[in-house]
């Protein structure tokens, strides 16, 4: 069960790969003392001679290769390094060691609506978020009608965002991010928002993008979503790759593992396991 898969062969020139990650390590230092003022800094330096900090080893030798057009899942427990991996893939963090290569433009669906401002109208927020994703104003002009259409916000478009429901905000963010087919899409748990209809619509759009050649990488705790949508899945555990393989197999293996943890942690309670299945 705990077999470590050998990393797959890598080609370099005309690449069939969208993402190749080789022996990726990501460590970062966190100060132990939390000196946020100069006084504290000086005191801490006097006391310990140097700043004490500890190292967080978020990723410890992860290798994986994702093909173009693949829908790829990343699963694992909280703190396994999934989000850290996404941050490296979206260039927010630099590898401590190892190599990451990406062929194509990455659009992360991470902080959906992170740039939204409550006092601005829906229209203004569309332009703002679109620009945050690196689009020019001209490009947003062209995409505008389709965004409004997909978000289903109708007449609210010129009302300030603070009057929107949380579902509407999520839909608007999603619609802006998904207005253009990206080469590579990173999806982090976004299907948690919106009603059933909207979820279906998003899923259809993912599928359409994948058919047209986009590579989609999904992090989710909803194992059924991963199993239904992904071709292949990598299971991360404590910063390392546990298994990589066909979605069905890896999800089953991971689920068994989680079940084992639950059983050892406390007496089996059938109700608490139902929602995982």
């Amino acid at each position, binding site marked *: 069960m705990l077999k470590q898969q050998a990393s797959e062969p890598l080609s370099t020139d005309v690449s069939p790969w969208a993402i190749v990650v080789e022996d990726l390590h990501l460590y970062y230092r966190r100060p132990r003392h939390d000196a946020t003022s100069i006084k504290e800094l000086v005191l801490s330096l006097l006391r310990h001679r140097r700043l004490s900090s500890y190292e967080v080893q978020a990723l410890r030798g992860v290798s994986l290769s994702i093909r173009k057009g693949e829908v790829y899942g990343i699963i694992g427990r909280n703190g396994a390094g999934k989000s850290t991996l996404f941050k490296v893939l979206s260039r*927010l963090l630099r590898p401590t060691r190892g190599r990451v290569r990406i062929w194509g433009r990455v659009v992360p669906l991470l902080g959906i609506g992170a740039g939204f401002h409550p006092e601005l109208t829906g229209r203004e927020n569309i332009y*703002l978020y679109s620009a945050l994703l690196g689009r020019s104003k001209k490009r947003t002009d062209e995409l505008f009608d389709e965004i409004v259409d997909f978000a289903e916000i109708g007449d609210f478009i010129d009302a300030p965002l603070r009057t929107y429901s949380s579902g509407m905000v999520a839909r608007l963010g999603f619609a802006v991010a998904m207005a253009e087919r990206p080469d590579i899409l990173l999806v982090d748990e976004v299907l948690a928002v919106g009603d059933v209809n909207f979820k279906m619509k998003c899923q259809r759009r993912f599928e359409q993008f994948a058919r047209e050649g986009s590579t989609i990488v999904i992090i989710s705790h909803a194992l059924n979503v991963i199993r239904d949508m992904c071709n292949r899945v990598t299971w991360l555990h404590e910063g390392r790759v546990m298994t990589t393989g066909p979605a069905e197999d890896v999800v089953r293996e991971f689920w068994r593992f989680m079940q084992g943890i639950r059983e050892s942690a406390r007496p089996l309670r059938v109700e608490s396991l139902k929602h995982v299945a």
Partner: protein
Amino acid sequence: MTLFYDSAQPRRPFREEIFGLWQYRDLVWLLVWRNLTVRYKRSILGALWSLMDPLLTMVIMTIVFSELLARKVPFFALYLFTGLLIYTFFAQATQNAIANFQQAGRLLTKVYLPRSVFVLVSVSEAMVNFLIGLGIMMGLAWVVKFPITWTWWSVPVALMLSFLVAIGVALALAPLSVLYADIGNIYAALLRLVMYLSAIFYEVDIFSGWPRRLIEINPLYHLILLLREPVYWHRLPNIYSFIYVGLLALALWIMGWKLFLRFVDEAILTL
């Protein structure tokens, strides 16, 4: 598809930033415009408040100090305005950069953006206010029949150098004030000191000896001269001011980028 990103390539952080800022230029303008409008969204006068602030300060200062200096300095309001414009620009640019980086910097942990984008936005925002203030000053000059002469043509140089100096200082302050909160407070105090040493509301002639020397090494004083000489005194600024401010702007620009690139990643991690 060609290789888009390779972590093994040597880093060129400065080039990445400059290239990125150019790529995201539409975002910079959107954020400038957003900051200018959002702040006053629920007020009746709206964005006009960004003009009211320097205008009200000027009115108050004119009333307070005209008694002291009115006989010596004709058109005192204009004299004051030239100093106040530069100082307000510089203070706004740098302090906004600190505040914006702290608030909006969280975005940098979620979306890939050039890291210096909020610094550029803050300084540009202050620059827009500066330009509006210049417009008001021209209007004022016209109303009180103050002559506007050809020497006004050197004003853009003052704008450019002010911009460079402000960018340099703001770049250094933004990440450092996140890492060490005291730096923001020390800077605020320093800024007040610099204000009193800038000959905004008095003439430098009233001092001699070391206080005067202190004023004359103050870069902000020279920036003010670059604006005040052509606008108020109808003569081109002293070449010494040009060289001093020019070299200083260059040094601050380089130092600002160095410090920014050195500390920005660390600062973002603590946000």
